[in-house]
């Protein structure tokens, strides 16, 4: 439904979006995750035809966003970060005006406005002026605006920002409910939002895609498992520990860190997810005369990847705690 290929956006010397490529299939909800200023909004604005790109291509429903911008815009519902509302209009009049702008045929307009209000749960506020509504309702009116022309693709820029926890849950439910018939891209910098609402996640940082993967509702995001171990090396020191663990079948990689003054090493062991290697590792380590203090399984979560992405900017963070799993590979 959406195909983005080496899309680039340059603002003077700044490269806001740097050769990103991804695709979203019909009916999918894609989460666009990244710290503020990563290029999420810019990418979305290019897809909605608001901004032209500097390079690369993007297609929505088979139409190029640059050459067939109007065709693309007919098929996209877009909720910018600040809902584009006219506060002095009533909800219904506002949605009617938007439906006209979106070229909804006049015989279907009323039905579409009603349907959009129903979907966004604002029907009971239809006669009220938007300026008198709470923030959560304004956001929902913004959402209704994005739905009023029954678009195939819905693009939501930070749809839950500024809402209270209850409203956030409502909006998430709403988005979930739209999936299937609609293809959705939503941007956020809130991690749980992605695991709760999205099928896939694209993590973007400094204009580049650093991860693109399916979201697993259990929180296990990658086909690899981590085992963390704390060991006091016997003869041969840390190097001996490392080679012992590496000899265990199924271990992919071992990273050691030695916090000062403890005499112990911390091992981060990347394992084949198909097997639980903890008992094998323990037996080998102890068998070679090293002392094992701790051994625990740790799953690579979205959070780890996101933290890795965001901490790259500040290399001064505690080295022993940084989970460097190479998730972006």
């Amino acid at each position: 439904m959406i195909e983005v290929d080496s899309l680039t956006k340059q603002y003077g010397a700044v490269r806001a979006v740097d050769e990103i490529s991804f695709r979203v299939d019909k009916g999918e909800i894609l989460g666009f995750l990244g710290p503020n200023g990563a290029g999420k909004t810019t990418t979305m604005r290019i897809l909605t035809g608001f901004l032209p790109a500097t390079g690369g291509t993007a297609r929505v429903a088979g139409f190029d966003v640059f050459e067939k911008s109007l065709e693309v815009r007919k098929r996209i519902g877009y909720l910018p970060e600040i809902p584009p509302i006219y506060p002095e209009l009533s909800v219904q009049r506002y949605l009617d005006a938007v439906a006209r702008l979106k070229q909804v045929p006049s015989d279907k307009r009323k039905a579409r406005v009603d349907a959009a209000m129903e979907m966004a749960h604002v029907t009971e506020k239809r006669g009220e002026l938007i300026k008198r509504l709470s923030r959560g309702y304004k956001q929902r009116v913004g959402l209704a605006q994005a739905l009023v022309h029954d678009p195939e693709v819905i693009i939501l820029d930070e749809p839950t920002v500024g809402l209270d926890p209850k409203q956030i849950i409502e909006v998430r439910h709403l988005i979930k409910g739209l999936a299937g018939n609609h293809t959705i891209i939503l941007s956020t910098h809130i991690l749980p939002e992605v695991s709760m609402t999205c099928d896939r996640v694209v993590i973007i940082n400094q204009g580049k895609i650093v991860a693109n993967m399916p979201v697993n509702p259990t929180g296990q995001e990658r086909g690899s498992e981590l085992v963390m171990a704390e060991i006091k090396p016997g003869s041969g020191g840390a190097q001996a520990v490392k080679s012992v663990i590496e000899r265990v079948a199924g271990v992919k990689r071992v990273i050691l860190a030695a916090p000062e003054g403890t005499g112990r090493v911390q091992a981060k062991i990347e394992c084949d997810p198909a097997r639980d290697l903890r008992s094998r590792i323990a037996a080998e380590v102890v068998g070679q005369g090293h002392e094992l203090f701790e051994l625990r399984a740790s799953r690579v979560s979205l959070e780890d990847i996101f933290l890795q992405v965001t901490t790259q900017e500040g290399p001064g963070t505690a080295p022993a705690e940084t989970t460097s799993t190479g998730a972006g590979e």
Partner: protein
Amino acid sequence: MKGIYAVFRKEMSLYFVSPIAYVAAGAYLFLAGIFFQGILAEANDYAMRAAMQAMQFGTPFEIDIPGEVMRGFFGVTGTILLFVVPMLTMGSYAEEKRRGTMELLMTSPITDLQIVLGKYLGVLTLFLIMVLPSALQMVILFRASDPMPPWRLLLSGYIGVILLGGSLLALGQFLSSLTESQIVAGIWTFLVFLMLWVLDFIVRGGSGSVVGAVAQYISILRHNTDFTRGVVDSSNLIYFATLIVLGLFLTLRSLDSMRWRRA
């Protein structure tokens, strides 16, 4: 066409739920009423004195009161517009940009030209709604005059007002599209219009010099004068049409540049 109408309708429904339209229309009609009354009283006064003089000295007496009033009134109208039009246009684009609704318009399946034309026709309609009631005063004046002046005088006067207003509106909307603050837009528009007014004074003062000639050509109020005398001259029509097209074109370019600038 549907795109233009959608934008136009949206503009109209917004005008009449915000106080600005009513304030501007009220201000205009109030000022126009005051000036009309003043000019009429002055013309009457002058006619009375002229008639008395004529009786004393037995000289023939002839004075065209409706003509005088009309010229004075339309002349003043031009000046009032310089002050009222910024109120109508200052929010046109600035407010949409501030609220983020420009993004809604610019991601709707309509072209930038349709947005510009829809918004322009909207503000022009508001302007007509505001200005046309003042014609009532003129109609009363005409009907009370003996002999009644030809209606085409009134028509040409209003063609002049509409063209002048249309040009100022196009210019004002362009200036509004340059900023996110309607106050800034209003001040800029007002300053630019003030320059046009000053230009008119230069024309009156320094005719004959090169500066005077150039000023006379540019001066927007000067081009309006012929209309107030009942002369619809094609060069004036072209002048105003050019200004309107220029204003709309610049607005279109400004919208285009919004797509290229970093928001």
